[in-house]
């Protein structure tokens, strides 16, 4: 540019073809805001300039989608073009001088923002996106001036229900077409389109069709504004009150990396977390809803007795009752152990070690959720997050695994009289299983949620779910992932490993493991596949997303908004 005031790099000698010779062979060397940037050929300008500390704003660009270059927010000044060019679409050229903050660029960004907000409704106070909205971020950074609109804003459909998961507010839409491109390119089911022309354009489904693809929830995540909203999450929480913990989805054996967004001791939503080797940036709608059992029908206290004899018990009382019964049965044919592949590796390590060492069993029956539908993208038919982990752990501890159907036969035959169940999930109809379990003389059940089976337990121990503790899951491909603790479990609720350690102590074993990490360090090395797993190093970083952050969690590890008694006052705001 003639009026550009950036320093030009020394011009390399031109090659016979007329192009300058690369300064760093094999790479493209450009100058960004006066700083030299060496990038791989084909690197996207928007991503590449971040490495030298420049930031180009954008709406429509997404690294996993095709380039649309329609939002015009990423316009920058480059030395080989007289006009401003969209950074997302412009290839880096050797010797190019890029200016991301020149007055021309800033004026262009301001103008783009002004146009985008011209017909935008005054919605922040009722908009779910407020707090994580790019319109808000960029307005404050690049525009910060009053509206010059004279007359009325254009009105469109404010609540167009697109499908079971997504609702669209067409007034808030900036037509970046990220959702359209996602449905076409990633979900491979083009259910969304842009209709109309010019200022009458809007996003919609085809007439009579619905946005019902299993991956439609991702359009809400990639929507840079509050146009596409998740019907499950809508109006349930303000995002700035939520904290996020890096976790793993337990909806199927894919184990998509996610963020758990929580407030107090309740989970509000799952969001996909970037993971190149598993789920890229996506997750399925079924997995998205699999947080619900974390909040609903949870068991809170230990229970003793069955039917009319059932009563609440203290933890020592319950442990004592289990130990009394199991000491007599240990090592006999009549005692069986049922393990659930929903439990984490740490839960299984401690529980199965307890089953082998204290209860003297040589085989373990496998419970877990029944098979469901799968697809050819992320969702698998196996709805248990840790089946591979259970197989590994059992092999590492010299235990054989038996299918669940054999347990039913053994109970019917009367050979199994007592069961120690780690996890309350079963692969067949729970009411049928409950009928079978009714014949048991003694059932000790560690479960997180109420079910027909929990009613049959003689001792019911409330178990924590994965967001209430840290640990690891091994997915269907054998990838082991760490997940972090979001919030502490309520009252007497403990993770399976803690129950196992407490029971072992009641049996007189000198076990002292006080955390999932301790458990992994004790028994992890005995499992060949987990022996080399770097438990501490694999932990996802604590810092999560950009934008608004709640005030840091207190040093005692309690989540923000956590109250010792009752629910946080912020709920429902």
């Amino acid at each position: 540019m003639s009026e550009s005031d950036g320093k030009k790099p020394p011009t390399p000698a031109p090659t016979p073809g007329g192009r300058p010779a690369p300064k760093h062979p094999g790479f493209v060397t450009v100058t960004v805001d006066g700083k030299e940037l060496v990038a791989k050929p084909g690197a996207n300008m928007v991503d590449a300039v971040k490495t030298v500390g420049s930031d180009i704003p954008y709406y429509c660009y997404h690294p996993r989608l095709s380039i649309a270059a329609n939002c015009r927010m990423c316009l920058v000044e480059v030395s080989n073009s007289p006009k401003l060019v969209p950074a997302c679409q412009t290839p880096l050229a050797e010797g190019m001088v890029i200016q991301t903050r020149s007055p021309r660029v800033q004026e262009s960004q301001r103008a783009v923002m002004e146009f985008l907000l011209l017909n935008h409704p005054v919605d922040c106070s009722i908009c779910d996106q407020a707090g994580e909205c790019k319109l808000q971020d960029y307005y404050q950074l690049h525009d910060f001036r009053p509206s010059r609109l004279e007359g009325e804003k254009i009105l469109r459909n404010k609540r167009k229900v697109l499908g079971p998961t997504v609702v669209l507010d067409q007034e808030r839409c900036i037509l970046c077409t990220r959702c359209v491109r996602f449905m076409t390119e990633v979900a491979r089911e083009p259910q969304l389109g842009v209709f109309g022309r010019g200022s009458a354009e809007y996003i919609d489904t085809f007439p009579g069709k619905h946005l019902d693809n299993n991956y439609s929830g991702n359009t809400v995540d990639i929507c840079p504004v509050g146009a596409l909203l998740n019907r499950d999450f809508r109006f349930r929480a303000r995002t700035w009150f939520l904290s996020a913990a890096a976790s793993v989805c337990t909806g199927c054996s894919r184990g998509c990396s996610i963020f758990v967004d929580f407030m107090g001791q309740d989970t509000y939503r799952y969001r996909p977390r970037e993971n190149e080797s598993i789920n890229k940036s996506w997750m399925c709608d079924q997995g998205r809803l699999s947080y619900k059992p974390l909040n609903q029908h949870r068991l809170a206290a230990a229970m003793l007795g069955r039917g009319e004899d059932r009563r609440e018990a203290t933890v020592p009382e319950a442990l004592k009752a289990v130990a009394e019964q199991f000491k007599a049965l240990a090592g006999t044919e009549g005692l069986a152990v049922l393990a659930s592949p929903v439990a984490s590796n740490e839960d299984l390590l401690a529980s199965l070690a307890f089953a082998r060492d204290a209860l003297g069993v040589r085989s373990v029956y496998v419970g877990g959720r029944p098979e469901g539908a799968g697809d050819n993208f992320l969702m698998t038919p196996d709805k248990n997050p840790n089946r591979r982990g259970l197989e590994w752990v059992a092999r590492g501890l010299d235990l054989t695994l038996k299918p669940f159907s054999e347990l039913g036969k053994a109970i019917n035959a009367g050979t199994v009289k007592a069961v120690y169940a780690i996890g309350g999930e079963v692969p067949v109809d729970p009411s049928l299983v409950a009928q079978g379990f009714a014949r048991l003389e003694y059932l000790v059940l560690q479960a997180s949620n109420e079910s027909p089976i929990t009613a049959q337990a003689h001792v019911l121990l409330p178990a924590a779910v994965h967001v209430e503790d840290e640990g690891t899951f091994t997915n269907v491909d054998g990838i082991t992932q760490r997940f972090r603790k979001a919030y502490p479990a309520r009252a007497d609720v403990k993770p399976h490993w803690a129950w196992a350690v407490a029971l072992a102590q009641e049996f007189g074993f000198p076990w002292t493991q006080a955390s999932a990490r301790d458990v992994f360090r004790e028994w992890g090395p005995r499992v060949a596949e987990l022996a080399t797993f770097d438990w501490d190093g694999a932990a996802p970083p604590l810092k999560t997303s950009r934008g608004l952050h709640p005030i840091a969690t207190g040093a005692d590890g309690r989540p923000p908004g956590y109250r010792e008694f009752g629910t946080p006052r912020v709920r429902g705001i």
Partner: protein
Amino acid sequence: MAHADERQTDESPSDEDSELEAHLQTRRMMINLGPSHPAMHGTVRMRVELEGETIVRADPEIGFLHRGFQKSCESVTWNQCLPYTDRLNYVSAIMNNLGFLKAVEKLIGLEIPERAQYIRVLSSELHRMHDHLTCVGAIGLELGGFSAFLYAIEARELIMDRVSELTGARLTTTFGRVGGLNRDLPDGWIERVTKTLDKIHELLGEVDGLLTANRIFVDRMRGTGVITTQDALDFGFTGPCLRANGINYDVRKAKPYWVYDRMEFDVPVGQNGDNYDRYLMRMEELKQSEKMIRQAMKQLPQGPIIVDDWRIVLPPKAEVYGSIEGVISHFKLVMEGVPVPPGEIYDSTEAANGELGWYLVSDGSGRPYKVHVRAPGFAILSGVPRMIEGKMLADLIPTFDTINMIGGEVEQ
């Protein structure tokens, strides 16, 4: 209240004569002055070791009013720090508010409108008078001159009325915002201030007549609580306490800020560094402040009271409720705070008791990374043992009065 720490008694005072025969006290007496003592302004405790009536050792113990000022500021946005600054020197809260804002504005590199600068000078000087009147009145009270106290407090009350008209609060003013002021002068306020100043002038004459040449008062004040100039500098004295030693240092003259360079005023300088000089400094500064307020009211220009930049200042309410631009700006400013650029800064203003300094660090978010306040009273209080050790116990009272230690700012 003072009480004997240990009272030595002879063994078995069985018969009536033994009291007469008892030996005189030979051990030093340790007394606690405060923390709840009317002469210990705020809540400070002075552990005093006495040899007869002579102070051998004095140890001021602070912390009873510690509120975690710095840490509190780190978890709120820049503007939300203001109510915390009210509680530093609560006798002149406006000067803390505006001093803090000035430092933040310097870190941003922001020039505030002229009218706001005038109102800042005007309200600061009003609160300087408020502070000095409290100090002078209290000196009179604690040395037995109750009438002088009543006159001073009557004058102070008039200022409080004007301040509450201006800010809505008598004490915790939370006045000003980053970029200017949150409210303009109320209607008819200037006339009321003029009348108030006339009345204060009259009342100050009474106080002056009752105290300045009063034999008893002068005897208690002159030559007591002396500190050498070198010591005063070494301890970091500023304000009237330093100027009483003859050092002409006033931030308003040394590094003029706002519109102080347009004000015509003198900085009184003493020579003896004793209680009487410190008292005289304050009496004179009261007159100078009055002069400045009258000038500022006369020169006060029309115009905006806060900068027009939606990155820093909340948009007008009509825009917030009626336009998306306004509501976004409001949301971001309230939820995230003013985006002060990353950096650090030291900035100071001349508060009633001396140089009120701010060391601020910003990491670019809307909340301070660090807020350190250099409270003038802290340095001065640390010099008290030097001023009082080897002197009489009775001198401690006027000395503690004239240094005008304010618990809120010293203990933060």
